[in-house]
């Protein structure tokens, strides 16, 4: 499944799209601790978090994550958005909380 197909299926808001919308979704990781994601998420994963600062995109880029989803209606900081666009990594959003969107993504990936 591509990031675009996931975004459509989960009705996600799109803050930054670009080339990365074609990325393949290999799995998901839900965490607000940056070192947890740094240490344990893998390439191609979608990262679900409430953090909105620029460092999330730095981590997404370094870890080659497929996309980042911000929960609970949070919006990205301006420099976060700029870096997402520069790195062509999709930055998405939902009004749902982490538990709900993680559950829906899990079901989508493991029907």
């Amino acid at each position, binding site marked *: 499944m591509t990031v675009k197909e996931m975004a459509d299926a989960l009705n996600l808001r799109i803050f930054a799209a670009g080339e990365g919308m074609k990325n393949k979704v290999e799995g998901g990781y839900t965490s607000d601790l940056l070192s947890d994601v740094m240490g344990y998420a893998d390439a191609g994963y979608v990262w679900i978090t409430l953090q909105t600062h620029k*460092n999330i995109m*730095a981590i997404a*880029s*370094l870890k080659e994550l497929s996309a980042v989803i911000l929960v609970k209606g949070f919006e990205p900081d301006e420099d976060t958005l700029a870096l997402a666009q520069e790195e062509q990594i999709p930055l998405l959003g939902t009004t749902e909380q982490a538990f709900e969107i993680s559950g829906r993504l899990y079901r989508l990936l493991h029907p």
Partner: protein
Amino acid sequence: MNLSFQIQGGDFTSAGTASSQVRRTLKELGVDASVIKRVVVALYEAEVNVVAHAYRGTISAEISPDKVFMKLVDEGPGITDIEKAMTPGFSTASQEVREMGFGAGMGLPNICRNADVFNIHSVPGKGTTVEITIQFK
């Protein structure tokens, strides 16, 4: 090949710059992807430690045909009890840093897990030096 970088304490917007540059260079050199992943995790964590705890620091990365040797030297408060600092979950990070999702006490354990050789020495009141070696196999 040698790369070097300066880090300013507290400058979180630039955190990851060195890791990103080293990653790009190793990719260009055709280093195995699984090795690059370990370098990125270890160097990013070490870089963030300097930003979160020290006043300033320097990073050097020495890339040879069989390994990368990275050295981070900072001027900062240093670490009084390194054994305690290595304990997963232990952190002295400020509340502000923790709210950003850093300071979970996973940094040094992450470095340790990904490095082939990891040395840390610190002089309280002066600063800390971290050395990380990762073999290309």
